[in-house]
């Protein structure tokens, strides 16, 4: 949790995650290269410059697609949460693969003494007025720039410096970058390569990301629609037994913010659903050793008062709770961060 600057706070799960990530990427790059050589006409080896562009570009595109699927998958099925924990490692690594693709293109032009052609393509204004013929490398450069900014600000230092809200706004640019990449492929490779594989793979990737996001949104909206409207500033959550032990039910305040109502044995407390670290969904986490534990990165807060256990100093907003005729009710008005509010049925 919060501490002085450390580049990466390595632990076993990060080492395993990164090892699998690097291993799978190496397998993809090796396999693609082998298959390209097998499929090449007899007596003709594939040009290494062209192959490099294709393998790094396709690898980076598939990695970005996987990254964008992790979020909604984790919302739909908790078994995908381990993929979410170190997603930023995957993002930084993807930037490096995408940068290798960009460098391969520049190198391709440099080897042929054609760098001025590359510059001309990017700086001719009339090219930008075309649809077919649009300078796709400009789309690629724009997407790579977004990835660079995201990779450069991926460390928790930037999260604290910018604040979680601004950091999140910045990192939502991933969606713009993905749109640019899809068009980069559609207006580039898909124009030159007449194989049906390209549009099929491109369409499948985009459709998968879109469908998963729609399903995750519907899943969230269906849970919202089941709730009762607040009465006199209190939302009825249900009997204490309706809250799973050491887990939470999430309810929605009229202003749209979500409240996580946790039960730890007989104790019931309500906190904001938003983790102070990266705005993760606290209500999807669980109570471990008396502390609410965020499912994304394991940040902890005491159920009693929303304070992180010492020596950490983070605090989150709490909400008053009461038991009214056997029904747990939570107030829609938050208390200042760190205010004790948990209740036991006897109190």
């Amino acid at each position: 949790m919060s501490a002085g600057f450390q580049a990466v706070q390595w632990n076993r799960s990060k080492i395993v995650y990164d090892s699998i990530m690097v291993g799978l990427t190496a397998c993809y790059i090796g396999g693609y290269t082998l298959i390209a050589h097998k499929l090449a006409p007899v007596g003709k080896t594939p040009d290494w410059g062209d192959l490099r562009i294709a393998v790094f570009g396709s690898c980076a595109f598939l990695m970005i697609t996987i990254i964008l699927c992790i979020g909604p998958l984790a919302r739909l099925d908790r078994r995908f949460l381990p993929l979410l924990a170190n997603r930023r490692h995957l993002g930084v690594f993807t930037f490096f693969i995408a940068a290798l693709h960009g460098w391969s293109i520049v190198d391709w032009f440099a080897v042929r003494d054609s760098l001025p052609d590359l510059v001309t393509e990017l700086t001719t204004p009339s090219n930008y007025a075309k649809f077919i013929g649009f300078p796709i490398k400009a789309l690629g450069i724009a997407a790579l720039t977004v990835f660079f900014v995201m990779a450069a600000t991926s460390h928790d230092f930037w999260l604290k410096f910018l604040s979680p809200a601004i950091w999140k706004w910045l990192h939502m640019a991933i969606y713009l970058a993905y749109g640019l990449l899809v068009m980069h492929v559609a207006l580039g490779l898909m124009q030159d390569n007449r194989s049906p594989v390209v549009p099929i793979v491109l369409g499948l990737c985009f459709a998968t990301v879109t469908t998963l996001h729609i399903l995750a949104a519907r899943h969230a909206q269906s849970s919202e629609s089941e709730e009762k409207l607040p009465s006199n500033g209190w939302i009825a959550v249900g009997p204490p037994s309706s809250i799973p032990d050491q887990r939470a039910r999430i309810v929605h305040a009229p202003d749209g913010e979500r409240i996580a109502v946790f039960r730890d044995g007989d104790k019931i407390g309500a906190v904001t659903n938003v983790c102070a670290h990266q705005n993760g969904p606290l209500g999807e986490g669980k109570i471990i050793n008396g502390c609410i534990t965020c499912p994304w990165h394991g940040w902890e807060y005491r159920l009693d008062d929303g304070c992180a256990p010492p020596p950490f100093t983070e605090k989150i907003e709490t909400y008053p709770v009461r038991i009214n005729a056997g029904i747990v009710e939570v107030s829609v008005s938050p208390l200042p961060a760190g205010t004790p509010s948990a209740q036991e049925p006897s109190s």
Partner: protein
Amino acid sequence: MRVEHRKFHRRAWHVLSIIVTVGVILALWLRPPPDQPEPVQPAASEAR
């Protein structure tokens, strides 16, 4: 996510997905036909 992020996220995702879907369909629809191979001319010796 905060409520502002969620609202923007839902709107932006819908708009972006429509734009990109239309873009990909247009890119497929408008791409020029593949170059036709030139007909092979018979060798002059075969013609004699």
